[in-house]
């Protein structure tokens, strides 16, 4: 229960901003690289193993294993990939800075037409 509350606290700024990101940008880039390289490497290993040992079945098994392993590493939101989270601006800060005003002259031009 304590861990759950801690996680809730951690993502509070994101929750208030309306968006939850469970993997930061650096993590996403890293995961994309891992995914592509891992799948290609397993494909090559599977192809070579199958050809050398003369078994199509073996190639399929090795590749399926590689795909499963890659899925386990890259698809879930492991905390390892979220070590530099960008936190959303606190709402109290937002209130201190006013939004820019629309110029009055623009409104007059619109009504003339």
């Amino acid at each position, binding site marked *: 229960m304590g861990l759950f509350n801690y996680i809730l606290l951690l993502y509070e700024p994101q929750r208030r901003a309306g968006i939850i*990101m*469970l*993997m930061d940008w650096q993590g*996403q*880039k890293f*995961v*994309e690289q891992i*995914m*592509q390289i891992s*799948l*290609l490497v397993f*494909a090559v290993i*599977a*192809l070579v193993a*199958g*050809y050398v040992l*003369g*078994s*199509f079945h073996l*190639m399929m098994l090795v*590749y399926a294993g590689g*795909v499963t392993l*890659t*899925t386990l590493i*890259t*698809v*879930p*939101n492991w905390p390892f990939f979220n070590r530099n989270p960008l936190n959303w601006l606190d709402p109290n800060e937002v209130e201190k800075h006013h939004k820019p005003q629309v110029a009055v002259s623009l409104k007059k031009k619109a009504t003339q037409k």
Partner: protein
Amino acid sequence: MHSFGYRLNVLLTFAVTILALMCAMASLSDNLNTPSPSAEIQIMNINWFQKQPQGNDEVSLTMNISADLQSLFTWNTKQVFIFVAAEYETPKNSLNQVSLWDAIIPAKEHAKFWIHTSNKYRFVDQGNNLRGKEFNLTLHWHVMPKTGKMFANKIVMTGYSLPEEYR
């Protein structure tokens, strides 16, 4: 890449695309194989040789077919389909091909064989041209892959002939 579902989609799509490429490579590897098949067919007996009521010649033969097709098999071979055809020339057709027998070889172990059999399919001519006819027996094979391109070839054996008179 910022959500579970998105990453899963990317991974599955990329994995399947790579799988297609692997299958293409497997098919290309079949070109590295240089097969050296051999075959021999003996006609043991002409069982009967008649003119049918419709007017066409028909012959029934017993053959002894022996072959070694083991070199055709690769890691990417599902099965080899073979058939024996009689080929001859008539005034009406420059080439007649009549399929006499076929079989499916599922594995390399079964590719070296001999079989004593009568023709599985009827040897019927378009007309009455078979008396004394000289013909070739051709063993065709189709190497059917697990993925990719199918290879087909044949061995032509010459020097066979049918009797001069009906039996």
